[in-house]
């Protein structure tokens, strides 16, 4: 099946946050124009090889896509429009950092077809924002959301983080209250994971990262799961909450194990039973494309077994879980024939439950998702 989702990576930031391990480089001195040219070439190569169907979701992530100049943004959005047939109801998201959302820029984005913004708010405490290396303040979050609304964006998502160094449960409570009062449609609420190679990892090694203990971290997660629904946001995935009907279409591509184009430095894609990863180094990415070659550093076939595993691992992240009928339709095998033993064991352990045709995580299963997911690996 041809992909109907597009992910585009903009690997530039004004500054690298201390927890960040995504492909992101400080923008000063970076060949942004050449990068956009390369990106366009990559789009062209892909659509020639694998012509797209009507695109249901576009996600421009980073880095900080909104760090692009107005001209650059215009160019980027126009090329997406040129190469991909955007469906009328397409969800088109751009990630935005609060300090970078001028009215003019947002206006251009709106004009070019973007209809959803995902703000990296993270927390509503200035001292915590500073400690995790964010360069915006609380007021800037509030202001940029106001600007977005003024420009006419109604579909807004906010990223929040918990388990931050020195963060208390009450801090998260205040953050959620404030964030909810801004009335977005969607929340992604992640616990901090210290990744290798980040500044936080270094600090942790040095014993200088005062992370909340496991009890507090759990309490924060449970607090988010309690408070957000009280404000009308239902949890629909381990880390995601939305008003009814406002669940992220793009992320569902991943969770439902569907194919998507991945474009840009460090991007991953899944097309025609193949997954691939792009070159992360910007200049290499550009150079390879200038030579009319694919910027792919690794590419591998996903066999049926792995597909079925991924279907379970990703699908069970959703609160609705996975459907046996869906499984049967996609893989022509009964789910219980393939994973009967694992399902049975996980059910006995109280981590999974059946609900008519579907299998989903129990309350305990949500907290121990990794135990569940790992079980499906062969």
């Amino acid at each position, binding site marked *: 099946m041809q992909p109907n989702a597009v992910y585009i990576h903009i690997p530039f930031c004004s500054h690298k946050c201390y927890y960040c391990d995504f492909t992101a480089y400080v923008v000063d001195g970076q060949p942004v124009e050449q990068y956009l040219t390369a990106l366009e070439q990559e789009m062209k190569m892909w659509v020639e090889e694998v012509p797209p169907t009507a695109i249901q979701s576009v996600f421009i992530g980073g880095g900080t896509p909104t760090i692009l100049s107005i001209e650059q943004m215009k160019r980027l959005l126009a090329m997406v429009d040129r190469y991909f047939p955007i469906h009328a109801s397409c969800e088109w998201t751009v990630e935005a950092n609060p300090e970078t959302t001028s009215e003019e820029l947002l206006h251009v984005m709106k004009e070019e077809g973007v209809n959803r913004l995902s703000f990296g708010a993270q927390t509503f405490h200035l001292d915590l924002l500073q400690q995790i290396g964010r360069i915006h303040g609380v007021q800037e979050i509030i202001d940029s959301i106001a600007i977005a609304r003024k420009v006419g964006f109604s579909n807004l998502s906010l990223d929040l983080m918990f388990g931050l160094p020195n963060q208390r449960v009450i801090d998260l409570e205040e953050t959620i209250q404030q964030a909810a009062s801004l009335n977005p449609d969607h929340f992604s609420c992640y616990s901090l*994971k210290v990744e290798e190679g980040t500044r936080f990892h270094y600090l942790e090694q040095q014993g200088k990262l005062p992370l909340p203990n496991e009890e507090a971290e759990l309490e924060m997660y449970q607090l988010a799961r309690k408070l957000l629904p009280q404000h009308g946001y239902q949890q629909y995935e381990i880390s995601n909450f939305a008003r009814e009907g406002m669940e992220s279409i793009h992320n569902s591509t991943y969770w439902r194990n569907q194919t998507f184009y991945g474009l840009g430095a460090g991007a991953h894609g899944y097309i025609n039973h193949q997954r691939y990863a792009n070159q992360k180094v910007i200049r290499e990415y550009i150079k390879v494309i200038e030579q009319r070659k694919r910027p792919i550093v690794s590419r591998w076939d996903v066999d049926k077994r792995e597909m079925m595993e991924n279907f379970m691992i990703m699908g069970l992240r959703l609160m609705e879980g996975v459907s046996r009928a869906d499984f049967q339709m996609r893989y022509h095998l009964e789910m219980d024939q393939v994973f009967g033993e694992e399902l049975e064991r996980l059910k006995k352990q109280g981590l999974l439950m059946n609900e008519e045709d579907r299998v989903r995580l129990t309350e305990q299963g949500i907290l121990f*998702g990794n135990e569940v997911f790992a079980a499906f690996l062969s």
Partner: protein
Amino acid sequence: MEKKISPAMIRNFSIIAHIDHGKSTLADRILEFTGAITEREKQEQFLDNMDLERERGITIKLQSVRLRYQAKDGQVYLLNLIDTPGHVDFSYEVSRSLQACEGALLVVDAAQGVEAQTLANFYLAWENELEILPVINKIDLPNAEPERVRKEIEDIIGWDASEAVLASAKAGIGMEDILEQIVKHIPPPSGKVEDPLRALIFDSLYDPYKGVIIYMRVVDGTLRKGMKIELMATGKVYEVTEIGVLTPHPVAVSELSVGEVGFVVANIKNVKDSRVGDTITDADRPAQEPLPGYRPITPMVFCGIYPVDSSQYEDLREALEKLELNDASLSYEPETSTALGFGFRCGFLGLLHMEIIQERIEREFQIPLITTAPSVIYHVYQTDGSKIEIENPTLMPAQQKIERVEEPYIKATMMAPNEYVGSIMEICQNKRGQYVDMEYMEGNRVNLIYRLPLAEIVYDFFDQLKSSTKGYASFDYELIGYQPSDLVKMDILLNGEVVDAFSFIVHRDRAYHRGKKLAAKLRKLIPRQMFEVPIQAVIGNKVVARETIRAMRKNVLAKCYGGDITRKRKLLEKQKEGKKRMKSVGSVEVPQEAFMAILQMDDE
């Protein structure tokens, strides 16, 4: 074909030393010097041929080499170098191979000086009435102090070292002097050619093509190809199909006579039929008496060995079958554990032997193992008048059915410089030892004798002894029989269920302490589970210790990684990999190390 050799021209010797004092290197240099191995074949440490031996610096299997040496007196001598294993677990084998010699080179490191095994080995050689030639090795080291070491040999061991050769095996210094001393000082063999054949078996190994190859030394008479031989301990008769010597390459000969060392192949199927220390005689003209000193080898330490992955049970059986072919002192039989599934109860000479076998199974056969704590054989007298022998703590009957329990005791002989007497006595007291005797000897040394329960020795006695005497103490033991003891079985419950693999037998006085310690240790070793896991140490129905493993609260990946599913899979795979090294006991995942926890408890 070689001419008949006069015993007068034969010298049989071995090399004894503390670990790392350069025994193997010296053996190699002697081989090189006498032309036994060429430059091309020169491979470091020719005599040790198992990887494991080389890594641990311990010789496990003995071998012998025949060398030709033209001495300064113009005569050509035949030297047989017999290698010896280097650990107390194998002291019986060492003493048998020493018995096959008339002399020994006592190698002492010029920097380290006299150490524990220098002493222990010296005494073994001395008891076998060997001519002992000290060699001070590694004199080329910058911190070598040959004169101090020479004095140490005289002061601590009480042996004349005025003629000790100053050598460096590594640099090839002193080789000729050593060989000259061997020829001059070591007496030639003294057996009678006309007597009925008596040959001493000092090793045997299994060869897949030839069957058992016996390494032996002819003491009296002559061994010929085609001859019918009898192994005196078992009474079994075989026909000799091949005789030879190692040069070190095997060379066939038609006969071996008094004083000669070599190998015999006689269609023997099992190493257990050719026991070390046994005497080979002529079946048609048998000797009146076997050679002295034979003692059947009996395993003293037992433990359960289980594959981590239960599907490897058959592989494990095959591995044990293969190892047994070459190891007369290894025994095993199938057993079942509710916690660990199917496995084997294995018997060993001692702890080192046990560790070596475990390591070989894991390394050579690639079967990850879980082993239970070592046990000895207990004699249980039941109230109904019957007596049972148990080597597995789980088989211990209920307390009310037991009239008394007896455990094996050893007589331990420890020798050390006298400043360590206090520490040795303290360790022995801690290990329930009973003082027997103490003797002050020349050179500031003390010989201490204790009766100790074998069960206490199989834990960490030897390590404790070594560390508290800086390695100076020598240690030898012999089994002296059974004594009643107030022993109880301690069970460990995980999440309310008895884990049989954790059960052990312990003296009542230390039960409380051990139970507490083990529970605490298990709490650290067993990772947190999704639920709280209580650990209880119980005797009968009485709980003597309790610990709790707190529940893990949360384990879930938050991030989505922008569609990068491989990254997520890698993290999950890592988690799954970790689980593979664990055994599910009931609902609790227990790591391999936890089963060995009992072993690593010191009794402080």
